[in-house]
């Protein structure tokens, strides 16, 4: 997985509450059996004019001038709610997003971000509104910075916020670690548990 240290990039505001996984990647766009080929379907229902079509809707933020090359997404409350489908995070990652900033996340979505190299940043709604306002004045000239090393989020106008994140999630993102590697380090404890459990609850293993 790609490591994340610090990133300064164009941010796209999509500040509405309850942006769900079906909106991020509609199921009709989720046909692949691999993790790629999903970027095109990202936000398809909002991004394109026609059902299943590819003609850009000029009003959607990612199609507006100044937002080309956006790598940071500014979102609203309960971002990524809905399904556990990880395709939503893969689509964001493949499109190029490396950080999502929102007041709150669905916990499954939050975990999926960490495991796929996207930094989920929880900031107060008011801070996000201020950042979005700054970005909207001139998106290309107002890149935001997400610094995972210093745990800071900032804008060129001097706004700066602490980036709250658990140590383990931070380490995984910084090191580009895979969760399986981490857990398999505990193999002995798992084997012990398994042996004990098998004696105590034999019916589970019928």
């Amino acid at each position, binding site marked *: 997985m790609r490591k994340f240290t610090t990133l300064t990039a164009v941010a796209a505001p999509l500040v509405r509450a309850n942006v769900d996984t079906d909106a991020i990647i509609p199921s009709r766009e989720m046909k692949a059996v691999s993790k790629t080929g999903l970027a095109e379907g990202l936000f398809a229902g909002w991004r394109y004019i026609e059902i299943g079509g590819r003609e850009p809707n000029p009003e959607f933020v990612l199609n507006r001038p100044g937002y080309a090359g956006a790598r940071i997404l500014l979102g609203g409350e309960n971002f990524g709610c809905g399904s*556990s489908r990880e395709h939503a995070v893969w689509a964001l990652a493949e499109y190029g997003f490396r950080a999502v900033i929102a007041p709150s996340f669905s916990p499954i979505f939050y975990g999926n971000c960490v495991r796929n190299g996207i930094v989920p940043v929880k900031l107060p709604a008011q801070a996000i509104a201020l950042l979005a306002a700054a970005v909207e004045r001139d998106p290309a000239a107002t890149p935001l910075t997400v610094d995972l090393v210093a745990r800071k989020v900032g804008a060129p106008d001097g706004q700066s916020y602490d980036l709250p994140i658990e140590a383990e999630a931070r380490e995984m993102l910084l090191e580009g670690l895979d969760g399986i590697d981490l857990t398999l380090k505990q193999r002995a*404890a798992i084997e012990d548990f398994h042996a004990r459990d098998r004696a105590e609850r034999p019916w589970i293993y019928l």
Partner: protein
Amino acid sequence: MTARTMFEKVWSAHEVVQETADTPAVLYIDLHLTHEVTSPQAFSVLRAGGLPVRRLDRTVATLDHSTPTDREQIFGGVPIKLESARKQVEQLERNAAEFGVELIGLRSDKRGIVHIIGPELGLTQPGKTIVCGDSHTSTHGAFGALAFGIGTTEVGHVLATQCLLQRKPRTCAVTVNGRLPAGVTAKDLVLAIIGRMGVSGGTGHVLEYRGEAIRALSMEERMTVCNMSIEAGARAGMVAPDETTYAYLKGRPRVPQGEAWDRALAEWRQLPSDPGAAFDREVVLDASTLEPMITWGTNPGMVAPLSGHIPSSGDDVFRKALDYMGFEPGEPLAGKKVDVVFVGSCTNGRLNDLREVARILRGRRVARGVTMLIVPGSQQVKREAEAEGLDQVFKSAGADWRESGCSMCLGMNGDTVQAGKYSVSTSNRNFEGRQGKGARTLLASPATAAAAAVTGFITDPRELLS
């Protein structure tokens, strides 16, 4: 010892490594259910790392999410028409063979929606930790299991380690006093609970449904309630096992028999929350005041009694939702026109649901201009329904009776609702585009869905039952 909740008992019995301030717990998983949509990339991760599936005796795969519901494509030797679905099915067949995972295959008489066949086969048992790459895994909590949905990376993680890294959720008791009035169903109850809690009201919590109304529910009805826990934002939902649970389980194929049954039963009886166990939160409802419910917006929390109205004002999200649905603020819900009716899904695709629908369809016809699709939750449900002649009731009413699968719950297999059309659906999600781009979904109980099918309008099913 301090009084513990059921959740705490199940959680601590599965903690391989306890959580710390910086690291989540390593939780042992008793049952891992997988399907064709969220597993292909997980198997690729194993293959790339040269890893085996850690515990084949804890892993069961099936095909449901994108499978056709048309008989010809399952049993008639006709290839699956939708290419994306065919690829996913073939990929899981290959992965299961390569890794040695038990697959309840396309033509198996045990196949069905993963959350319906788990309980049916008796794989779902009290006190187990159960995961699946589908949010509605919470269904299995009806048995006093701790069951939740996981993402594909976690699917890979469980396949490789039989463990999951988890932060311990908080607990919330949902106490439902009184009894549901006649004609008000478990679906109406859970929609009312979500309406009360909101779509993020349960975030970070495991819900324990309890109280007189819950105890009175059948296992099927408890599954309907637990199924939608995630729609209140909760990690999982649970109901304490009791005699209803044991009676349902006894004799099922994967349930322990003889002496092992007695031993398991003795353990299960220890599971319910101890008297006085503290929950982090509690929500209290009175079942006797509830009515049939239906959603009017684009999340399951946007819900009202059938006899009620859409709220007259709201925020930006409210306005966007009404815009999408083509509704006006303050409008009454009863009498709204319906184009499509879908009965099925892991929420309401069991035999009792189909019986409810048949009660209303018997001797009536689906209204002109309405399409009705009835998809049994499993092949076993299908057989049982046919043995009772329910399929004849459905067909003579003009409804379409299919093979089992997720179908129009998520519209991945080609069963979709057209843009702008109104669909009364017994499934669990009314998000924008869930049943097809531009599709307008109204979630309701099987009885309400059937009533809408025969009248062509949102109708209180109690009017047709008297």
